[in-house]
């Protein structure tokens, strides 16, 4: 099992009140599976992705990545696990606007201690895969929304992670770029990557490759 979630709860405190965001989530995602978490804004999709990535801690329950309980790992180990196994794609791309496309994609590999020529090779492979190699030297601030998203995809792929987590990846893209994004996801799926997409975009309802749509409402998975 690639991702295992057991009885997961997440509650935020707001002005002294407890606001439950995730309630009793249990989910198993196999290696190579593509899962689409569907739900309206506020249904808990992004929180669930953050917990899977180990960016946040649950209020209770388990999140296991290949049997490693990421929800319990100290920050140091959670960061290591994330760097090796998880690539993230965000709604707002989260690029460094003052850096070039190539530099943005290089960043995740800097702490790895790899040799520079190896890093350059990996960056080029990721840029090819995300179809953005032609913009390698361009500043991120000069890119269109679709190009920014493809840069973010390249950055997520550069460390060759087993798991790709996408948070509302097409929310800021037009239809044409959204379809291009789905094509890249299809390619990654065929490469055996485990993909989890949190979205409310209906384009993901009927993908032309094997995927599982999981509807979420008010922090719960609707069976």
């Amino acid at each position, binding site marked *: 099992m690639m991702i295992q979630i057991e009885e997961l709860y997440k509650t935020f405190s707001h002005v002294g009140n407890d606001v439950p965001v995730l309630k009793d989530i249990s989910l198993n995602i196999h290696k190579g599976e593509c899962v689409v978490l569907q739900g309206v804004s506020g249904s808990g999709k992004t929180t669930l992705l953050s917990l899977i990535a180990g960016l946040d*801690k649950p*209020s*209770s*329950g*388990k999140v296991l990545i290949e049997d490693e*309980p990421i*929800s*319990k790992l*100290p920050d*140091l180990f959670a960061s290591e696990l994330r760097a090796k196994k998880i690539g993230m794609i965000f709604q707002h791309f989260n690029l460094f606007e003052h850096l070039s496309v190539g530099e943005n994609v290089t960043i995740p590999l800097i702490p790895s201690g790899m040799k520079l020529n190896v890093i350059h090779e990996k960056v080029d492979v990721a840029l090819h895969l995300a179809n953005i190699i032609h913009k390698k030297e361009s500043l991120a601030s000069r890119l269109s929304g679709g190009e920014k998203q493809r840069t973010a995809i390249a950055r997520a792929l550069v460390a060759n992670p087993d798991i790709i987590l996408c948070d509302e990846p097409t929310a800021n893209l037009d239809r044409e770029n959204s379809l291009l994004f789905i094509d890249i996801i299809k390619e990654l799926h065929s490469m055996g990557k485990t993909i989890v997409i949190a979205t409310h975009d209906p384009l993901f309802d009927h993908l032309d490759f094997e995927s599982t749509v999981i509807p979420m409402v008010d922090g719960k998975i609707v069976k």
Partner: protein
Amino acid sequence: MNEVLLSNQVIVYLLSESILFLLLFVAFIVSLKVLMKWDFERFTPLQFALEREAYLVTTILLFTFSMKFLMIIYFIFSIDALSLLVPGAMCAAGVITANEYGSYLLILKLVILFFLTLWFYINTYDMRTKNHQWFKKKSWVFSFIFLLIVIELVLDLKYFSNIDTHLPVSCCSALFGQLEGANPLPFGLTVPLLLVLFYLLYVLVLLTLKTNQTLLYILANILFVYIAYYAVVYFFGTYIYELPTHKCPFCMLQAEYMYVGYFLWISLFVGTYIGLSDAISTLWLKLSHTRSQKTVTYLLSFFVLLCTAYVAIYYFKNGVLL
């Protein structure tokens, strides 16, 4: 009110210590709660809440303990400054012996610093394990440190509120100077033997450190810091002051000696504390080897070189030894 308690340095010192104590008190209460209910294997809301609280406690301790290291330097600076108020005192030596609490307070502060260093080591190792393996040990060490800090705060208040600015105290030359026929050195040593032991122990510390003979290393380290204290006061210090009769561990902290005392004492105590804490935590936590060999080597070597340099420079300048 006592003139001493109204001096700027003492107000700042006591206020800072009180704030740190308040932070530590909060950390202590929370850590006791965490310690009682801690079970890392559980995935319950309580355990997750405890882990968040433990993280908060660790952050508070990292801050307050770092500040405590700076506070001892400020404490020495403050009592040195108080020598202007206390009749007969020429430096911190006279002020520290102005009442019966001063010496105990200074020794307690040095002991606390050792345990703080030990806590830092256990904390570092604990943070490097996936399951916070040393969390309980780290918390018990903190509980013990907190107890010492309570005593320290009481002694701080007792000490500063009982310094009588009308009662003359002895100056350092009276405190550390040789009384007729009396030998102030430990084990009946003479100065040449003290020096031989000083350099031999330094080499032994480095050798045992290199060869990972942890128990012997701990023993050599304790002996070295003890002998080094006497070597500085009764031999190297006289070259710092360029006066054979001036024997004092505190005067060298003053501006006229370029604050060299701070460099000497900090390198000696920090080097020793790091070495001891590393070795003790290695034994206690059953780790494979010590990890601070370079830091200890650099700090102790700096200390020995600085001491030796004063003698060498004096000799080259004057062609004689004191």
